[in-house]
């Protein structure tokens, strides 16, 4: 656990990717308002670890169909992640490997590994509302954004913090608004504004559980917002951690192309 605290450079869901989306807890200030730097640091590190192994249920809601995937995820720091689809049968064995900024998909049906070209980074990952870019992006709320506590939030009740991308930061989001719980510890909601300052997605966090001694929201729901500023009809992606172990030994060889293609 101590080593965990020391290592900032670890991402859980290989998909640190999601690191950005994952808030962190904060040290509540004596008189209510939490300390902003502590908050950001905890948000950044909420899901980070030297390594992790987790099981996730990914539910993609589409207007005509809801599709649930069971994923197994191995991560090593921020740099490496392997995601393997375990169910349902149709997608079973499909796997994604991330090493740094590179992404490969292995498709059992055609028995080929394909590197995702940069032009496809904004495309959906496995039909979900997450993009390939969400998987490879590594950004830090603390380092890449200017931030301030924007006061108390009514709905949901808690603290509102506002993050504005630093001019040097290249990324999708111009602005992110977080709502933290009343203790300033865990995130409840995050609203992402694109470069044109339009609300583009809302992420909600709930079902707080303790995994491996760490208190985290086990359920994340991402709602895409269309260009009119309304939530897209019947579209949502939910991620639920069924299990996650932080700082368990994960072998380097896990994150190789041969492992990606290994018969599963």
């Amino acid at each position, binding site marked *: 656990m101590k080593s965990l605290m020391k290592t900032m450079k670890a991402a859980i869901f290989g998909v640190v990717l999601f690191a950005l989306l994952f808030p962190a807890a904060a040290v509540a200030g004596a008189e209510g308002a939490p300390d902003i730097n502590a908050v950001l640091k905890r948000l950044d590190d909420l899901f980070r670890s030297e390594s992790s192994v987790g099981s996730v249920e990914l539910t993609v809601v589409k207007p005509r169909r809801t599709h649930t995937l069971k994923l197994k995820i191995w991560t090593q720091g921020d740099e490496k992640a392997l995601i393997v689809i375990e169910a349902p049968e149709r997608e079973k064995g499909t796997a994604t490997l991330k090493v740094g900024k590179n992404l490969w998909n292995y498709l059992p049906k*055609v028995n*080929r590994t394909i*590197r995702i070209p940069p032009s*496809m980074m904004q*495309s959906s990952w496995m*039909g979900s509302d997450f993009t390939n870019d969400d998987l490879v992006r590594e950004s830090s709320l603390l380092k890449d954004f200017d931030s301030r506590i924007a006061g108390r939030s009514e709905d949901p009740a808690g603290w509102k913090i506002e993050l504005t991308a630093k001019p040097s930061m290249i990324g999708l989001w111009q602005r992110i608004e977080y709502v933290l719980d009343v203790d300033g510890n865990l995130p409840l909601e995050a609203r992402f504004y694109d470069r044109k300052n339009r609300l583009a997605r809302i992420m909600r966090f709930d079902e707080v559980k303790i995994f491996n001694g760490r208190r985290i929201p086990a359920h994340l729901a991402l709602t895409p917002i269309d260009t009119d500023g309304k939530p897209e009809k019947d579209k949502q992606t939910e991620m639920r951690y069924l299990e996650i172990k932080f700082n368990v030994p994960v072998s380097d060889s896990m994150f190789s192309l041969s492992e990606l293609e290994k018969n599963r």
Partner: protein
Amino acid sequence: MRFSTLKIAWRNLGRNRRRTLLGVSAIALGQFTLITVNGLNAGYFESMLRIVTGPLIGHVQVHQRGWREERAVDQYIDNLGRAESEIKTLPEVQSVSARIFSPALGAAGEPGREPAEAEMAMVVGVDVPVENREGGILASLPAEDLPGPGSVVLGKVLAQRLKLTPGKTVAVIGQDADGFPVSNIFLVKSLVKGGNEIVSRLGIVMPLKEAQDFLVLPDKAHEIVILGNDYRKAGELADRIKSLPGLKDAEILTWKEAFPVIVRMIGMKTWTDLIFLAILFIAAAAGIANTMMMSTFERTREFGMLLALGTRPGRLVRMITLESVILGLVGVAVGSILGAAVVYLTSQTGIDYGALSGIRGQEINFQGLTLSYIVYPKLEFRNVLFGVGAVMVTAFLASFWPAFLAARLEPTEAVRA
């Protein structure tokens, strides 16, 4: 009018040959320019019109509303079979073909030691026999090169990027109507350039049925292309299709509505035609008026003499007008013959605009269509007639003033001038 007047007029033109030649040349050059420029325009715009009213675009297109802007996979026309059979009941309909367009990733399908580099692509499901006709997506492909079950035709540019040649296989990762990934391997039958930019740049072309199965789009397509008897009656055809019950929610567009920019460009042809007609008017007016004024004024004494000898002013007017008309006719005849000859010759060989402007390659992509830089000029007889008419009108007008002056001459004064 006596024949002698004509003869005298003709002879008068021969009295100052250099001046007459100059007048004839000005008119000939004007007519030549009119015919060649308009011929070039006619050829260029006609090829454009052929493309926008051909099988690639059809006379009428049907899509789900919004598809043209977003091109999302789930913006399909449902109950395709019913829609198609309803359209086919219309008597003027020549052909109906449906297409599927779905973004995908393509990669070389041969297992190699390195993972394949994927490229953005587009699965294009088509009605193979219909697209195999002239002007279609698969035009000019021999039967053995057409896509079939498990095989595809690749756009040339995509094939180059993927380093694929016919006989190899391509792995395709597409998405079904709900956006979930689907993948399969296909044999590459041949490569296609085609007149559609999407097809040559991104196309993975397969039979409609294959695409429907692969992308889980049963009885669905994104586009229906309809050819009627006559592209000029596309509006009426579209109206009749709009009243079909199976397509009441769809967006039904004529080729004009689908490609307004190209229609506007074709419309510009009328204006260029008019501009060159105006230039011809000016050239003819200058050539004839100058010649006639000069020759009338220097002949004041002669006219006075003729009048003194009893020539009626009317005959004088006819003579001068005839000189002017003959001058114009000779000029326009020379210009027409030269212009028609040049247009005919270039219409056989074609003119490579690209080469003329130093551009490599013979195509330009415009509005998603591939247009050829090679233009085959076309002689429009109408423009020859317009030119002749313009010159005749000018000849009459330009001779009016000198003829009027000559007729009003006072013989005694004129002889003394």
